[in-house]
């Protein structure tokens, strides 16, 4: 049912991964892999606090281990409702860290080489570096079986739960009562006999039911089972591809494979459990790990024993608390001075402020940061998300130095803000205009017309934010750069809108350009009065610009509220008929919580309606907002949170900032400046 699972380092190295379908294994190798897009589009964008990410029909869930900088990702078909994925991730995380702790610590240290001075951790890392053979494949070889077992356990459990939900007959009702509470017991006090008997009982019942159900599908299931063993081989495709067509057969088939496997594995795991039950391992493992570094031997035994017990134990505890990981990390930490030195160490670490951050440490600081952000006019929703993702990045991390939690959070917030505000696409408007012009010219060389395609920019936004004013500022800047600009008055609704633009055009053509006394003919207005169809006027204006050799067309639209559906439809029609090169959303810096609503609805409406309407020659491509202009910047002093809200919502850059009354009052945003303003008290 899963499509892909990977365990990787934040630096980009994949430690272990497994694809269950050919399609997934194919895409995993390319740059378009779902994991890469998760990181590109969600984690780096500061959305790591969200619970799920969807891409290409996949749903992805993830979790971090911050002290070892690991990311665990599971991808599955979005249409499937897999309830066990969260639990699986938590169990994977605990188990993986537990089993490979020494190796991982060395690995992470090797990717954090300080220039010459070797810290405590670095010393152990570099010391073993020369002697350490980086044998990743053989190290993680054993993990395959561990993972198989773990996955199987969860799938069996999920199948059972579903079965009990589906069948409302007496025995089925009986099942959950009998099966779930024992697993609870098992997690809290792992006794020896209880788990095995319960397991056997469950399995027997499970197998019985599945055999009945799956009689006709016998051979297919067997083939699938074999394929599953191979690492993402072609055989596994046989199993999952047909399985994903409908829910019930796939589930049934899956459970069938589980049942079969249980039969095979039951005997060894039982005997292992007898010798290696949960409590025994808890006590023993740290010393074992410290003395022997031979991982492979450890993996083999520990995995089998801890698999079920540890998995379920984790599942129960994970939801409300982080401490499990912390306990495990502390118990198995080999080269961390703070834990091994005991009381003295903790005192020392308290003095120097070196400690592992926990949810409890962070909560008050993060709350304070959230309040601070909101004071700076960041929308509440955005402030929450940003702070949450900062917390997500910090939990479990060890902080050093004198600053303590506050400084750590502040620094993390600062990097997060920088990251969000830094544009991911080029904001160089002039360059893209020139590129388009030269391209259309060069492509026209052989053509008879020799007319170049003008670069069109549409300004959208709610009423009264300054669309026309800032359009004229942009126009002035373009004229200064030697462009010929046509302004299309597509606000055919508000009285005086056309006249306003006419005045701007008159002013602009009187202003000198580059020393020349006037710029007549460089800027013109294309107007068709009031009450007409805006999309039509825009279309005409573009063809007019093409005929009269204009470089840029600036299209002014009527302001509209984001909830007004007919008007939003009209706007989408304008966009899809003319397919402008840039759609610029104009928003005011004064806006608070409303910013989120405005932008999401404008973006959504443009995308939905432009994709649905299918004007523009059948190429019904989704068009969203390409960039933003934040106006009235001079009125908000340092409460510049709107900039953050806007960039966070759309992921698009702020191209310009309007900050005054004259044509020259247009600025480019500088990220460091805004971050500073937001963080300042």
């Amino acid at each position: 049912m899963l499509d892909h699972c990977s365990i990787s380092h934040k630096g980009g190295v994949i430690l272990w991964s497994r694809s269950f379908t050919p399609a997934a294994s194919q895409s995993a190798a390319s740059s378009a892999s779902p994991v890469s897009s998760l990181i590109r589009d969600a984690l780096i964008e500061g959305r790591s606090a969200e619970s799920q990410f969807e891409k290409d029909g996949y749903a992805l869930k993830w979790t971090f281990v911050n002290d070892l900088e690991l990311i665990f990702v599971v991808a599955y078909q979005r249409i499937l409702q897999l309830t066990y994925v969260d639990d699986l991730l938590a169990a994977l995380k605990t188990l993986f860290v537990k089993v490979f702790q020494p190796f991982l610590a060395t690995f992470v240290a090797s990717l954090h080489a300080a220039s010459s001075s070797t810290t405590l951790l670095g010393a152990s890392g570099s010391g073993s570096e020369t002697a350490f053979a980086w044998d990743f494949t053989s190290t993680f070889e054993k993990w395959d079986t561990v993972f198989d077992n773990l996955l199987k356990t969860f799938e069996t459990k999920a199948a059972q739960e579903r079965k009990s939900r589906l069948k409302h007959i007496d025995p089925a009702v009986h099942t959950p009562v009998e099966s779930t509470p024992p697993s609870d017991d098992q997690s809290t006090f792992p006794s020896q006999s209880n788990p095995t008997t319960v397991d056997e009982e469950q399995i027997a019942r499970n197998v019985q039911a599945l055999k009945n159900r799956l009689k006709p599908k016998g051979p297919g299931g067997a083939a699938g089972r074999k394929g599953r063993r191979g690492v993402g081989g072609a055989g596994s495709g046989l199993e999952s591809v047909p399985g994903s067509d409908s829910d019930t057969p796939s589930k049934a088939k899956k459970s069938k494979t589980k049942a079969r496997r249980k039969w095979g594995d039951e005997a060894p795991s039982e005997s292992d459990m007898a010798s290696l039950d949960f409590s025994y391992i808890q006590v023993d493992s740290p010393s074992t790990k410290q003395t022997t570094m031979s991982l492979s031997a450890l993996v083999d035994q520990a995995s089998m024993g801890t698999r079920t017990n540890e998995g379920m134990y984790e599942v129960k505890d994970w939801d409300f608390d982080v401490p499990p990981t912390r306990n495990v990390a502390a118990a198995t930490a080999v080269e961390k001075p703070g834990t091994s030195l005991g009381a003295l160490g903790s005192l020392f670490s308290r003095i120097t402020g070196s400690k592992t951050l926990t949810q409890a440490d962070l909560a008050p600081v993060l709350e304070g940061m959230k309040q601070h952000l909101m004071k700076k006019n960041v929308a509440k929703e955005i402030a929450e998300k940003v702070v949450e993702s900062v917390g997500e990045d910090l939990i479990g991390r060890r902080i050093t130095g004198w600053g303590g939690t506050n400084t750590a959070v502040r620094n993390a917030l600062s990097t997060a803000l920088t990251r969000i505000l830094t544009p991911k696409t080029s904001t160089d408007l002039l360059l893209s205009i020139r590129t388009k012009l030269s391209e259309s010219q060069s492509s026209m060389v052989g053509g008879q017309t020799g007319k170049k395609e003008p670069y069109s920019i549409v300004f959208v936004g709610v009423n009264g934010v300054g669309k026309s004013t800032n359009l004229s500022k942009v126009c002035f800047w373009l004229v200064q750069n030697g462009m010929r600009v046509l302004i299309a008055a597509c606000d055919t609704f508000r009285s005086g809108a056309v006249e306003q633009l006419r005045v701007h055009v008159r002013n602009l053509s009187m202003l000198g350009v580059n020393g020349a006394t006037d710029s007549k003919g460089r800027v013109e207005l294309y107007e068709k009065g009031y009450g007409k169809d805006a999309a039509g006027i825009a279309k005409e204006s573009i063809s007019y610009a093409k005929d009269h050799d204009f470089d840029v067309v600036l299209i002014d639209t009527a302001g509209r509220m984001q909830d007004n559906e007919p008007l939003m439809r009209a706007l989408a029609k304008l966009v899809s008929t003319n397919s402008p090169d840039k759609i610029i959303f104009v928003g005011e810096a004064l806006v608070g919580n409303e910013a989120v609503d405005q932008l999401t609805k404008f973006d959504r409406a443009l995308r939905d309606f432009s994709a649905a309407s299918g004007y523009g020659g059948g190429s019904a491509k989704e068009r969203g907002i390409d960039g933003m202009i934040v106006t009235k910047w001079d009125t908000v002093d340092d409460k510049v949170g709107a900039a953050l809200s806007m960039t966070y919502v759309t992921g698009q850059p702020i191209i310009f900032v309007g900050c005054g009354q004259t044509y020259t009052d247009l600025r480019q945003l500088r990220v460091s400046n805004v971050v500073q303003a937001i963080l300042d008290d």
Partner: protein
Amino acid sequence: MDGSHPSHEAPSIGQPTPEVVSAVSVMNSQYLLFGSLSLAVLILSLLFLARKKAQSRGNSLLLVGASDGGKTAILSTLLYKQTLPTHTSMQTNMANISLPPSNKALRIIDVPGHPRIRDQFREYMSDAKAVAFVVDASTISRNGAAVADHLHQVLHTLTSLPPSQVPPAFTIVAHKCDLLKASTNATSEQLAINRVRTILERELDKRKASHAGGVGMESLGAEGEEGAELGGLECSGNEFKFAEWEGGEVAFIGTSVAVGKAAVVDGEKRDGLSDFRDWLVELP
């Protein structure tokens, strides 16, 4: 006697005072001498150290370039002697390696190429001995503009380094050569290098032309220091050519790695990264 008494008294009184004074003054001057001497030595040594530090080039190789270029793969090949599968990096990797023949120590810094975090490379620039801009040769024709945008920033940073720092060696690595098909008269490395060079020169030339004579926009807040204008593309000729770039020499290297294959440890056999290793070894 009476006269002699005071006369005797006077020196006896007068004697100690100058003695004390002189002792204090001697002590004082001695302390002062020592103090000033040691201070001078301290300042001199500090100056010397600072100068030495400023003069010395760093000891890091900076791997920069657009996302999915293969920077982390190169790092893992050099560090672990095997190519690990990778995905988009979220954070900078730093690793110490030693290059085979003379065991020269080198620190590799692999900066993520995601547009939102790639600017971190500026922090490491002061410590850079060499900068390698890694380009995916197989997708450069599609991503030319975006890659050039990043390269422009790197070139700008390289040219605006303080004069006290020895400018780091710069190379453009045409990575993933193995994805290009070698033709009869050119190996895939040469092909990749040519393609990367041509496309990047074209894109950078476009950027240069667009910035020439344009009226930039002021950026918000404190004016001056680093305005919106991005330089770094100065050439002796009119068009942008790497050969004529005023920031220094630009080397081109074709490389490739393959996931799952062990890298060559000794210098005898050649693999996809051999050229790059040679270049690193030859660095001063």
